[in-house]
């Protein structure tokens, strides 16, 4: 789909010329607009503050008809991100039934950023993190900070 490339290029231009605060976008490979490297600053006020989190955003060939896929490459201790090398994440906007072709990558990125500020423990994929987040916030924050220091430098 030729229109796919065009749209992705447009979105890329938009995000690189006017990047949202705390998000830096670059291509993994300059010749392929489908794979984006994202570097996201841990939002201030969250236990991730000070960390730099790498994410990989992959746009399918039939983007924007199908949603992009986004994963944390940097380990992150977060109820909604699996604490493993995949960093799989659960955000509503990316579910196929919620995704609309006019949704933009920018909104995916800001939704991800928002998820760092406000985890959704009820939709958790990392159950132990969710439990701590709900029952022992101080401990959760402490651990999240430690992991941030450890991995997200």
């Amino acid at each position, binding site marked *: 789909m030729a229109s796919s490339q065009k749209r992705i290029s447009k979105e890329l231009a938009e995000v690189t010329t006017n990047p949202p605060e705390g998000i830096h976008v670059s291509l993994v490979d300059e010749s392929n607009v489908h794979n984006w490297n994202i570097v996201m600053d841990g939002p201030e006020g969250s236990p991730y503050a000070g960390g730099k989190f790498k994410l990989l955003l992959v746009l399918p060939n039939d983007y924007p008809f199908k949603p992009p896929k986004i*994963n944390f490459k940097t380990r992150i201790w977060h109820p909604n991100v699996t604490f493993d090398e*995949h960093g*799989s994440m*659960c955000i509503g906007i990316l*579910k196929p039934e919620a995704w*609309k072709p*006019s949704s933009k990558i920018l909104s995916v990125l800001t939704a991800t950023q928002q998820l760092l500020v406000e985890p959704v423990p009820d*939709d958790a994929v990392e159950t132990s993190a969710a439990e701590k987040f709900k029952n022992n916030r101080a401990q959760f924050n402490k651990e999240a900070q430690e992991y941030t220091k450890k991995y997200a430098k």
Partner: protein
Amino acid sequence: MEDERKVELDCITAIFPEMVLDPESPFSASIELPVNPQTPVDVAFTNASDAPPTPPQSDSSEVNVSVELTADNVDLQNVSYLPSLQLHITLPDGYPEEQPPTFKLSTTPSWLSRAYLDELESNAQALWEEAGHGAVVFGYIDSLQQAAENAFGYAGASKILEAPRDFKISMLDFDIQAKQAAFKRETFGCGICLEPKKGSVCHRMLDCGHVFCVECLQDFYNNAIKEGDLAAVRCLAPGCAKERAEAQADGSRKKPKTHLSPSELLQIPLELDTITRYVRLKHKAGLESDKNTIYCPRKWCQGAARSKKHRKPIGLALHDGSDDESGLDEEEAGTTPSRRDLLSVCEDCSFAFCNRCYQGWHGEFTICMPKTNTGELTEEDKASIEYLKLHTTPCPTCSAPAQKTHGCNHMICFTCRSHFCYLCSAWLSPSNPYAHFNTINTRCYMRLWELEHGDGDDVGVGYAGGVEEVLEEGAVEVGLEAPPLAIEFPDEPEIDPTEDANAEPPVVREALQREGPLVLRINELPPRPVLALAPAPGLARDGPGNRGPAAQNQARGRNGPRQVGGQRGGPRRRRLNPAGRQRAPPELDEIGAAQQAWIQMFVQMALNDEEDQLDSDGEEDGAWEIPVR
């Protein structure tokens, strides 16, 4: 010296290029003045066509309006464009010094009363006097245009324009045409291709008013209908219809209108064939999500019995048309309704049959026995059913089988939108589907990500289809007609639609509803702790056989999916009982204790945040490939 009138007309024509000069007489011209008020006008179409429309300025108007509106024969419409005002200009000899200009006004249909138009016409005289017998044509046109801006006093909520009902069609038609013309002139940013597009190549959604370019809509809807993803045929703006869709998920039986109607698809326009397919799929989805649907016993037909709830679409009209259900045997009155209900008529081949014994209709007085479904199946059918048992999970609501191609185990049924668990087919609450996977001591605890790369031939484990006895006759029937199709992975086997002689090939290509947060694999591992914690010897962390810990590991570690598939697939498949339903693997019970111990350790470690280490060494030294025995 040139005639002043000619100079003036030339000048006016330069200002209003739409002015038409009368070829017959040199000093006559006509112009159409659009009536496009800034705020829409409420028009009341009344039956009182004998009463002439009343101008707002005249004294009686207020009374008339209030009286007429109380009558229930009033049809109130909101109109943005009113039929334009025709102005005919004649400049007589002696104009401008001695003679005033003659203006004739009219509208088609005559929604402005003659009296009011006369009043407007006579204004010209005053204007001409005011201007000291000068050139007044421009000034007059300008005054009309200004009056038209507020629809001659009718614009806004304060006044209501009355018009005879006879004018309704032409006035509304004019409004629609004018709106369309204005739409075509406008430029829109299409939210899909992000390009600015002229309105003429755009479509405005009828329900919500969002605008997209026709090309993108065609691409998207054609693809969605081709894949059978009916739920995607809706407005493409983010969040649009979300509330309506959520209301639907809340279990209200009545479906809110979130999907596009066939007529709207035709307007976009899509190909007629595509829309026909859409209508047919919609009908089929309705039938399939209804457990009460009865299917025709004729093997070559297998259509659904006629029902009032899901009427077979006629042309592009969904749930429309008169059904002639009453056509057969209806004259035999006086029997109990229950007996009569046994009669079913196939909507496709019109075969009349008994829905208890599935024989041709034997009349109401024959006692028959329910059909026992021993049915001889062809090898292909058996293979299909077998595949469905092994690699699909039926929806708990409608039994439609679903095959996961990737993602987590929270599924949404592609026919009835129920949320369910792929592993055990349990119904999940749409508001918090993950609770099922996060509740300790349940079978699916911590297994949200199991089988992340989809179910298929290379995955030897039958999930719900095997674990639970949920595949009933209905599900099999559904399955035969629409084998689920793996769309994501080309190496996954597909059931060739043509092998099922009874299925219609285009219908068969139902795409599987893909579900769950999409995930992606990252090859580059982040730095991990090297602390190697050997698993306790007693805790069997076996690979192929044990679905408990291994699966748990897989869910959390998620190493190469194909590899796992290979590991599990080979031996597992040989163990399958080809005829029976796939049960939980026998080893599961035998090693239950070890497994439990392992889980306990895992939970303990999870509480100490060490389970990661368990994972990492598991992946790196291949510890969990140790054979079971």
